[in-house]
């Protein structure tokens, strides 16, 4: 029914100028709606040989051509590889979506999705209506999201490796230092006792040398694996947060958690990727912290707190941190005890320090923990 009206509506229209679209002749309210529908839905009608019989104004816009330019052309010219013969009746009936690559009149290629439907009755020849969807914008956003995701993952991996290397080397340096010192003490003792003479002294010196050599190897390896700290640049806060939104948007619903973002505009000195990592990590931790709670709320907040500083906070409605945990997270990492914080938080802390801030822990109004740190504000030049 719909398709018939569609076909008739187009064929009844008087020929137009190439550049203007005169208002359609409206017979009924139904046709008025159909016309409106066609304005927003790119669609073409094709014959059995895939030749374009009619094209809606929005499809014209999509392909950047006029009706006259489109009519009579094979749809396969515009949608690469399109051939009606290859599409079965079953596909028409099911309304299945297929994906193709299309070409605009200026040659620009873009991804497009199609749905087809046979025009039943009302026409002597067989006609098919093809509804199109320009996927280019969606694709661009998706690629951007993927790219950011990859960048973050890579930076995270690099940081993790760097952090682990730093911890490991720090741990190893202790027994090596002790060993070299014990060896030296033995040399001193032996030389005083005068008992074993040159040979033993030489061997001890060799042993000491090897121990120090191990230390040098560790130093070198750590330098290789350490993530380079990029210099801080002035970065506007809002775009950085906005880039994270898709990721955050996935985290929340999956865990049944509401993540509320309340961030004021501002210009700060930051390493964009590192800062995003730190924020993503804090938000992830917060989501984890509320996973088993009745109230599952996480808040990411940002505002300038003074002339010089902009504060970012992540708060949750979880169980909060005990005094012991708070103390352990904030104290300088000890050399002999294992890292009580977990790799993620220690990397985040390091990123915060590189930005010139320090992490502070507190209780949130939501009932759980609040993690906060400050960034230096960049001087803003007046614009707009």
């Amino acid at each position, binding site marked *: 029914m719909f398709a018939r009206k569609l076909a008739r509506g187009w064929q009844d229209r008087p020929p137009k100028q190439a550049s203007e679209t005169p208002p359609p002749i409206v017979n009924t309210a139904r046709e008025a709606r159909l016309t409106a529908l066609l304005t927003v839905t790119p669609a073409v009608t094709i014959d059995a040989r895939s030749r374009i019989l009619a094209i809606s104004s929005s499809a014209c816009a999509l392909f950047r051509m006029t009706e006259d330019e489109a009519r009579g052309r094979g749809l396969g010219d515009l949608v690469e590889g399109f051939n009606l013969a290859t599409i079965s009746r079953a596909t028409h009936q099911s309304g299945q979506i297929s994906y193709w690559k299309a070409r605009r009149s200026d040659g620009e290629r873009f991804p497009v999705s199609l749905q087809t439907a046979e025009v039943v009755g009302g026409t002597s020849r067989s006609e098919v209506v093809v509804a199109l969807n320009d996927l280019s914008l969606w694709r661009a956003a998706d690629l951007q999201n993927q790219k950011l995701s990859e960048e973050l993952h890579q930076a995270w991996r690099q940081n993790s490796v760097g952090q682990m290397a730093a911890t490991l080397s720090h741990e190893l*340096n202790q027994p090596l230092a002790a060993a070299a010192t014990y060896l030296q003490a033995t040399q001193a003792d032996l030389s005083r006792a005068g008992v074993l003479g040159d040979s033993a002294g030489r061997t001890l010196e060799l042993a000491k040398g090897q*121990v120090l050599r191990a230390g040098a190897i560790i130093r070198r390896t750590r330098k290789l694996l350490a993530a380079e700290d990029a210099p801080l640049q002035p970065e506007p806060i809002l775009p950085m947060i906005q880039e994270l939104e898709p990721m955050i948007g996935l985290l929340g619903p999956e865990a049944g958690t509401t993540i509320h973002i309340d961030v004021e505009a501002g210009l700060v000195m930051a390493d964009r990727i590192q800062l995003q990592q730190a924020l993503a990590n804090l938000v992830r931790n917060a989501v984890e912290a509320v996973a088993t709670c009745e109230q599952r709320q996480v808040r990411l907040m940002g505002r300038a707190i003074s002339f010089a500083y902009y504060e970012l906070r992540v708060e949750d409605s979880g169980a909060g941190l005990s005094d012991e945990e708070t103390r352990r997270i904030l104290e*300088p990492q000890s050399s002999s005890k294992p890292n009580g914080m977990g790799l993620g938080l220690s990397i985040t802390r390091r990123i915060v320090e590189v930005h010139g801030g320090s992490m502070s822990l507190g209780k949130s109004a939501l009932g759980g923990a609040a993690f906060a740190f400050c960034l230096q504000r960049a001087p803003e030049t007046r614009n707009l």
Partner: protein
Amino acid sequence: MKTPSVYVIDDDFAVRDALVLLLRSEGLRARGFASGTDFLSDLPSDPVACVITDLRMPGIGGAELVRRLNTLKGDAWSIVIITGHGDVSSAVDLMKAGVVDFIEKPFEPLRLVETVKGCVAQLRQLAVDLEDRERLEQKLGLLTTRERQVYDGLAHGRSNKEIAADLEISPRTVEVFRAHVMTKMEASSLSDLLRMDLARLGYARQLTPGADAAA
């Protein structure tokens, strides 16, 4: 007088133990502490000392310990940092704060021993100076008001006549007081007295013996 002690602060038992062992075998007095907190709560009262400390320790870290020791002991206690971390930026800050040396673990033990021995030698001299200064202050405490006034005049290079005019007494009186001052201060000559006074004010090393100030 006692040779200055070396205090080793490191939360790693083996590093601490090995260092104390080595320092003692090199003829130094050494004692270990497991943390900055332990050290500060049991702080030795030595006038001079050498402290070897790590940076990353539970409780009060090395950087904070340096700050506190600087406040409490000033230049009289020398500090050497040994660290397993190799944080260059903190090295610069700490050197600026007056730390004697910043050594990464694992270190060549001889280097640390040499550094420490150098510190101890300087500290020994400093201890002597400090004792001298104290003795001087004690002697000064024994002077009467007038005698002190004459002493101050002499220390400022005033002549007997000038001092007499300043204090509105006769030059003859000044001479009497001057003799008392010399005896009580145990000074053999005026230049001796001036040297003592400069030492008291902390300029001991800049004066060479025999320099004479105008009488």
